[in-house]
């Protein structure tokens, strides 16, 4: 009986350690956005501009909207996990009379840090002639990438370089899916200490809107130390289990 307890404690301990290593936190991780356009920046914690709901033990759903000073409306729905991943959709509508350049960062605090990572990501979207002018245009800024995956604020992967998407029909739309990385096999990434994020940089024509669905996953590569600790606990529980069994056998023999 004692061996069962020992085994249970060891299992729970190992599980908790492994879980703590993998999950690290049980509260909503800080998820922030920063929208810059025409030299005006705004944003903050996404939870201050909408709602956050825990939908799974380590997953939170952020929904919200933001109205920028430059005639821009931004709305989002993002599922995040500090394990970590960021996935969701946002829409930007340029309600001004001029084409605008936008720089939009989504950033998620992760816990615990990743000693090494495996990365995957993707972006897809829809451009809409929202004002019925007969055209809509989405381009990269100076030929750069529209989507950039960030690790600790540094670009680790990028998609949609030299993007040029247009709508030529009044009230029309065009959908685009412009590449991915790490599918089906994740690519190796750097150590990540504090945040992962996705940066969007694009120019959008006046009166039109664009929606982006995006994914960025940074799977942790289990650290050797975690393996060692889990292995040690496993051996310890096995040893105690054996001791317990031999004691039990001995007592039975005595009887």
């Amino acid at each position: 009986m004692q061996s069962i307890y020992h085994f249970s404690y060891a299992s729970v301990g190992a599980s908790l350690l492994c879980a703590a290593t993998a999950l690290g936190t049980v509260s909503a991780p800080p998820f922030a956005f920063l929208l810059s356009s025409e030299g005006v920046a705004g944003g903050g914690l996404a939870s201050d501009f909408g709602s956050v709901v825990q939908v799974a033990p380590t997953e939170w759903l952020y929904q919200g909207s933001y109205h920028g000073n430059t005639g821009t409306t931004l709305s989002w729905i993002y599922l995040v996990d500090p394990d970590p991943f960021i996935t969701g959709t946002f829409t930007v509508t340029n309600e001004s009379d001029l084409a605008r350049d936008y720089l939009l960062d989504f950033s998620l605090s992760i816990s615990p840090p990743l000693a090494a990572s495996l990365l995957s990501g993707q972006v897809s979207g829809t451009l809409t002639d929202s004002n019925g002018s007969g055209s809509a245009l989405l381009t990269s800024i100076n030929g750069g990438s529209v989507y950039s995956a960030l690790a600790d604020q540094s670009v680790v992967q990028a998609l949609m370089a030299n993007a040029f998407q247009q709508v030529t029909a009044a009230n029309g739309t065009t959908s685009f899916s412009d590449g991915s990385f790490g599918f089906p096999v994740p690519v190796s990434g750097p150590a990540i200490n504090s945040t992962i994020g996705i940066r969007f940089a694009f120019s959008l024509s006046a009166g039109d809107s664009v929606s982006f669905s995006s994914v960025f996953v940074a799977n942790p590569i289990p650290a050797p130390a975690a393996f060692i600790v889990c292995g040690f606990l496993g051996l310890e529980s096995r040893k105690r289990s054996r001791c317990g069994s031999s004691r039990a056998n001995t007592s039975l023999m005595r009887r």
Partner: protein
Amino acid sequence: MGRKRLIQTPMSTLLPRAALLSGLLISGPALGGFSLEGFTASVLSTAGSSTPTNTVTPVSSTTWSATGAWTAGGASVSWTDNTQGWNPVTNSGFTNGNFVVRNQSASAQDFSITIGMTGSAAGPLTISGSVGGQFLNASTALGSLTSTVPLWAALVDGTPARSEFNNTLVFAQPFQIISLGNANFSGVVVPTSAASNISIRLNFRMSAGSEASFSSTVAFQAVPNPGAVALIALAGAFGRRRRRR
């Protein structure tokens, strides 16, 4: 003098006059129009039922912006929609929006979402519009988006005037995004009047842990009645005759 001036009047000056006359004729009350009286949003889902929240903000005298959300049983729908009631200058109106539907429940769910505006417009009308979207599987299992009826439809008084994405069947690997593509159309004639509403409807089933987003527009315009067309033709012929003189 007056005749001479007419003869010397360049064509570029005459054409706008004819166009202005035409525009005045088309926008006459006999041709009808759309009066914005409200905004409608409904969500039916197997995930559960609740009343959507919808905040409507005037952007101009004829244009409105609506932001809304619906949540029940672990599923959610959110939208931002811009609507323009009848514009007497362009003789048109539109509703366009972006929708995001998320199924965080443990099983596949059905969704039927209707967003639009209430009011009336005297027919016949022509309708143009478009829809595009993405399907995102944020679960660790294979995700699917299906629809055995048209996934998207433009409705006039609840009756489909145009439908797109018929018999949709899309699969996505974990954390994969599938583009649903896009559909554009124009010049669809609705012979009848819109008595109560013009709206967009989405119908589909979506697997657990998935998200679908759609961008959609529906614009409607009055069809000039035969009398107006005859007057336009008459104005054109009159202008031509004057130029010849």
